[in-house]
């Protein structure tokens, strides 16, 4: 399933950059990257987000999907609406609420630098 565009996104995280796509035709922001714009079929180009946004929703995971995540539990997962006009899933610092203004930082989990919503 993973493709070069996903690898490019995660390489951005490793470099402290939150990368997303914007259509060069209709201007729509697209977070899950594809070789085309899902809105109009146009050609997306990569941009770097300022990482500022608002919490759309939140959960605290107690029952983890795999033993690897058990060491981290409980952990918060948020859906964040970025100011550039796209939504993403990210880890979140504890104590946030819907509507909280956040900034996306990064924290290491295994091999990856994972996006994490932190109080702005």
């Amino acid at each position, binding site marked *: 399933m993973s493709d070069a565009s996903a690898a490019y996104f995660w390489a951005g995280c490793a470099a402290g950059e939150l990368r997303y796509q914007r259509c060069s035709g209709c201007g729509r922001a697209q977070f899950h990257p594809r070789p085309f714009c899902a809105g109009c079929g146009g050609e997306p180009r990569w941009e770097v987000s300022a990482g500022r946004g608002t919490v759309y929703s*939140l959960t605290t995971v107690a029952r983890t999907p795999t033993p690897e995540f058990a060491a981290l539990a409980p952990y918060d997962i948020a859906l964040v609406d970025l100011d550039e006009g796209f939504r993403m899933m990210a880890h979140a610092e504890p104590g946030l609420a819907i509507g909280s203004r956040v900034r996306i930082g990064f924290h290491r989990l295994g091999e990856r630098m994972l996006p994490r919503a932190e109080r702005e």
Partner: protein
Amino acid sequence: MPYLTGSGDTRFGRLEGETTLTLMATATAAALEDAALERRDVDGLLCGYSTVFPHLMLATVFAEYFGLGPAYAHAIQLGGATGCAMAMLAMRLVQSGQCRHVLVAAGENRLTGQSRDRTVESLAQVGHPDFELPFGPTIPAYYALVARRYMHEHGVSEEDLAGFAVLMRRNAGRHPGAHLRDPIAVPDVLASRTIAAPLKLLDCCPISDGAAAFVVSATPTSARRVRLRGAAQASRHQHVSAADATVLGAGLAASRAFAEAGITREDVDLLAIYDSFTITVLAQLEEIGFAPRGKAAVLLREGAFEREGRLPLNTHGGLLSFGHCGVAGGMAHLLEAERQLSGRAAARQAGEPRLAFVHGDGGVLSAHVSLVLERE
């Protein structure tokens, strides 16, 4: 006109020593007997899938195992909406003249056939592999994200959600085949351990073993007259990170099904709505319009969804208490609707309903299939 001519199932729960195929066979034998049909009468076969027994061709595997020679057969994968999607396709196969008797079957030893950890991990895979799974979500976490937003927008409380778990348990108490039958109360739900906040253990359906099957035929095969009058689908997203927590797709599927059936929502006498979590059934009731936004729990407390109420809901106990064994879990709603319409629901019988609405959702409220069933 497509008729639901027979149905059969196993009890749900811990069924030691069974396999996907033995469970499917038990339910199928019961469905054929109920329809007064022989194996040779079945010319169409639709099967679901089994996470314990993943196979590229489950329908023809089952046809060989059970001894069927269908002229049309394949499996369908649409998560929790699979059962309703198979009913919709069976309806179309009969309407088009392709088939006379379509058997729909599913079963899975999901509880005893693999570890709970394995099930939790495999189900989480409906999330996005690159942009969700790295954060360690689970199916309950995806629904929790919908729940928290929905509660925020529409003023729904954790007590409101808990009420649906309590109702499902009360209903399951009247069904000898239900997985969970011990009564619970709202404080029990609130005190159960957190799985993915705000969802707690008793907001979540159990993992069960079980199977269900039904037959859709071009003409009645017995004195019973329950027909499929309308069916429709909708899908607006796959992943929760692409979803709108208020407009999920259930309302669109339902309105299309009502239109095909030539009825309005107000004509419906009985509800069987997918309830993998308490938020699932509450949000769908409100999106479809069986309750105003934020008010489903008020109607629940007023008794509207009780067996004796205006709109009896999941009288078998739903996924939350009858149990969830995968595809057959969503089919149990349809079987219960048929039993209610044909007056065969025993201690659960909710008057003499004529029109039932059945709804399944798959993924994270990603795939929606609505059905309208009618007693002629």
